């Protein structure tokens, strides 16, 4: 099985506004900058979407997708922010199983891992789906604290596990014949 490098979203949007000077766009890349969402006093929700990961150049045409690994680095100053949803997203729809964690967000920065080499998130995905610019991860969070929640998001990155297509070159066919004879 082959795997891609971790790729970062080219696009990020959120229903929440950013708390200056921490811009929303800082939630995309592993660059030492992070986004801090501004959420009013509880209970309040915010949904965020990372999409367009640019996998077209790294997954060969004809490959079969075997697993999706998502890593998010995030934390909050208050311990009462949690996910209500974390799902894959494609072409305007949430797809697959619900991967929200039951844990409250950490008070200190941590990288959380969702999925893995053989985890298809309860759905089937083709290369065409993965390279689609709308493919991404959608996350909904809620804060139950009486204080202002300040969820911080540093980055979200995705690695795709896949098997390459069998190619029927003359060399491959000769090797195959040798193996079975």
């Amino acid at each position, binding site marked *: 099985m082959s795997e891609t490098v971790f790729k970062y979203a080219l696009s990020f949007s959120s229903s929440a506004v950013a708390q200056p000077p921490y811009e929303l766009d800082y939630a995309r890349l592993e660059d030492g900058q992070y986004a801090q969402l501004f959420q009013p006093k509880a209970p309040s929700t915010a949904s965020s979407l990372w999409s367009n990961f640019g996998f077209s150049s790294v997954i060969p045409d004809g490959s079969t997708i075997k697993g999706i690994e998502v890593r998010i680095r995030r934390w909050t100053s208050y311990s009462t922010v949690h996910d209500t*949803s974390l799902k894959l997203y494609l072409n305007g729809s949430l797809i697959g199983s*619900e991967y929200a964690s*039951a844990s409250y967000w950490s008070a200190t920065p941590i990288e959380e891992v969702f999925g893995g080499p053989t985890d298809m998130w309860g759905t089937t995905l083709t290369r065409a789906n993965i390279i689609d610019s709308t493919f991404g991860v959608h996350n909904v969070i809620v804060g139950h604290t009486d204080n202002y929640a300040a969820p911080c998001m540093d980055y979200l990155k995705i690695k795709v596990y896949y098997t390459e297509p069998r190619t029927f070159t003359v060399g491959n066919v000769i090797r195959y014949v040798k193996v079975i004879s």
Partner: protein
Amino acid sequence: MELVELLVSHILLPERGLCRRGSMITLKNKFSLYLDTLFKLKNDGKILEPNINCFDNNVSSLSALISLDKKTLDKMTVGEALDILHVKEENNTEYEFWIMWTFEKIGKEIDTDIRKIFLTKIFNPMNAMRLYLDYDFWTDEEDTILKEKFKGKLPKAEKELELKEVSRKKVST
């Protein structure tokens, strides 16, 4: 003025505190007592925790309550207020987060009849799981209601629960 303050100012009664302190609030208690308990009013009737979003502009039924005259409001029970607010209506999703917040604030102080009505407004499986994990006041029947709301819908979170990576406040006997 926040809507919630407006509501409280309309309903706040001089005779609030009709329910004996220490007993649970029921559907038959005055709505004013419920609000008093929820917002922990100071003696001058001002809210200790202003600007809370529990009744916000998304709760469309709130205006119906505020539009009632004070005399009617003064006599209103919790059950009647929940009727006017359409809390008991099936598939009314606008109260979910407000109810999450209410359980946090006074879950222990409202009786199981009110809690059962509120639990019908919890639709998000993760919200159901958080309620299940965070409070120790649930009855066995309420445990079952909550579990049914998230069972089979949160593969990652349910695994965390199974492996005890997340803990529950209520200690099983």
